[in-house]
């Protein structure tokens, strides 16, 4: 019995989560979430019977005779049960979130067309051409990273990996810039003269 307030709270938390999942048909209809709910029910049962919380977390799921009766478990050619935790966690973390890929493709294609014909069609020259093209390139690269690579829908931990190389890359550019700077100023002097 759950006299222990810590365990009672844990059970309450799990039940709240089950209700939350079952209130959303998009989630509760997928095998991964059904597996999640099944596991949480097992955990609640284990907690009620006085099992330790940590042990309950790793309780084993019995595969019924004949295989694939369990929603998140498939059976491979040799008849062994296969559970893919990677797919489960992916569902758990990201669900089916993604952007409208065709729209992103259209934007990228149009931007490529404009980049290609910018100077021919709009008579943009010199520094303004450089600025316009650079901005468009960075926007296109950002679109690919955010939507095709799903960066927009990733957890924030991903930025911990990406920040350091980005800072190092900036350092590298600044390290070579004193070399280049003098020449850039020379150009502008030539332009004024």
């Amino acid at each position, binding site marked *: 019995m759950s006299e222990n307030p810590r365990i009672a709270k844990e059970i309450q938390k799990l039940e709240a989560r089950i209700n939350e999942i079952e209130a959303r048909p998009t989630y509760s209809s997928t095998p991964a979430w059904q597996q999640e709910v099944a596991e949480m029910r097992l955990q609640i049962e284990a907690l009620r019977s006085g099992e330790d919380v940590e042990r309950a*977390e*790793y309780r*084993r*799921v019995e*595969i019924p*005779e004949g*295989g694939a009766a369990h929603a998140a*478990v*498939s059976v491979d050619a040799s008849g062994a*049960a296969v*559970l893919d*935790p*990677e*797919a*489960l*966690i*992916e569902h758990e*973390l990201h669900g089916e979130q*993604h952007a409208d*890929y*065709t729209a*992103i*493709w259209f934007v*990228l*294609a149009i931007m*490529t067309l404009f*980049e*290609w014909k*910018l100077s021919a069609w709009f008579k943009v020259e010199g520094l303004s*051409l*450089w600025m316009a*093209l*650079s901005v*468009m*390139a960075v926007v*296109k*690269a950002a679109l*690919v*990273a955010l939507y*095709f*690579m799903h960066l927009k829908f*990733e957890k*924030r931990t*991903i930025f911990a*990996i*990406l920040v350091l*190389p980005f800072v*190092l*890359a900036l350092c*590298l*550019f600044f*390290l*070579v810039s004193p*070399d*280049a700077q003098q*020449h*850039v100023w020379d*150009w*502008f002097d*030539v332009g004024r003269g």
Partner: protein
Amino acid sequence: MSEALAVRPGRDARRALGMTPGKFAMWAFLASDGMGFVGLFAAYIATRLHADWWPDPNNPAVLNVDLTALNTFILVCSSVTMVYALQACREDRIRACAGYLGLTILGGVSFLGIQVYEYIHLAESGMVPWEDNFCATFYSLTCYHGLHVLSGVIYLTCILIGTLRGRYNSKNYTPIEIVGLFWHFVDLVWILLFTFIYLLRPLGVESF
């Protein structure tokens, strides 16, 4: 058959990481691989800003920008077929997934074919890597990228074979997502290279 199955041994680690270990590893690899491009790119910028003279890449006698614009478009399209492949796999449409992967590979192979064609023509007109700084930076950057496209095509082919053998489905699509990350990265880098190598015309220097 009734043997017990361990539930998610590395579950807490995955929660802490926020993604599967394979995906984390691919992101870490891309971050380090990107540094390779950054190094070459910094060298290109320094060399270009240093130069007293730089050829106008828009001049048809220098680079074929029209053909490369087409190539950029092909690579962007192959990125889109890649995300469609992943989506199809998530929805258990395995044949569609294999088809989209095939189209992605086709895009990559076409890209490489056009690039080799471009190289041959440039070499015939005397633009060889050791000709001047323009040629040296042009070939090192585009060739480094081309090798990435080649490895991407090989990687995609392996994943396509796995897909045709029924290895991936809506419960196991992480390998397809990971190859997609690599492929989109290659596309992303090309978008930047196309702009900064092919499109930026010299500023202060008169083009020939």
